[in-house]
């Protein structure tokens, strides 16, 4: 079991209803995709925020990762929708 800080932005943040939280991840959560699946089991606000999980972007320690990539040992993981800056 390891503890990680999760941060949320834009409509992911609004739907989950918080900016950030510290959670403990089960050992079985190894990739960014595993994390999304795990979070969706935590309640309907997560389910609603992460429903279309293929569009959700993940950053580990402030760098983009693909869903298949490892999140093991991450201090901070961010979840957010596709970016619309510029």
């Amino acid at each position, binding site marked *: 079991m390891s503890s990680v800080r999760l941060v949320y932005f*834009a409509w992911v943040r609004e739907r989950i209803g918080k900016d950030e939280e510290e959670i403990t991840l089960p050992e079985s959560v190894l990739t960014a995709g595993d994390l999304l699946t795990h979070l969706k089991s935590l309640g309907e606000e997560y389910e609603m925020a992460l429903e279309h999980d293929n569009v959700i972007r993940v950053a580990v320690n402030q760098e983009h990762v693909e869903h298949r990539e490892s999140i093991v040992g991450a201090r901070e993981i961010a979840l*957010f929708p*596709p970016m*619309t*800056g*510029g």
Partner: protein
Amino acid sequence: MTDPAISVRVQREDFDLAAEVSALSSGRKDIGAVVTFSGLCRDEAGTLGALELEHYPGMAEAEIRRVSEAAMVRFGLIALTAIHRYGRILPGENIVLVVAASPHRQAAFDGANFVMDFLKTSAPFWKKEIDTAGKAGQWVSAKDADDSARDRWTESDGKANS
């Protein structure tokens, strides 16, 4: 190590185009071309009151810097400034600035273009529309056209970019 020829800022305040060009080029004699791109907030035919720009502090700067470093190498730029604002931005106001300097014009044009294409799809910023009555509306959706604009930089030569 931070490249001193790259200046990246993420800020609430406005910026001044002339001041940024001058800061980047003053005292140098090796620059032959400076291209500036600035992105502004449109009023969408009078329907938009403002944009609220959210960002991921730390990663926003880091991601713009990564894109900037790639552009410096790929196009042989000699100086680059990139500024992105956050917070509430009204129609007509500035959102983003890229200033690219090189010995010859093509690299400066391409460098600024490249930075914008990658910044739009990889720098963590999100726009929310505020209507003219001040009521919060929809989050702006990402456009496929922005992904296509980014991808054309990899199609021609297969190089990794960011």
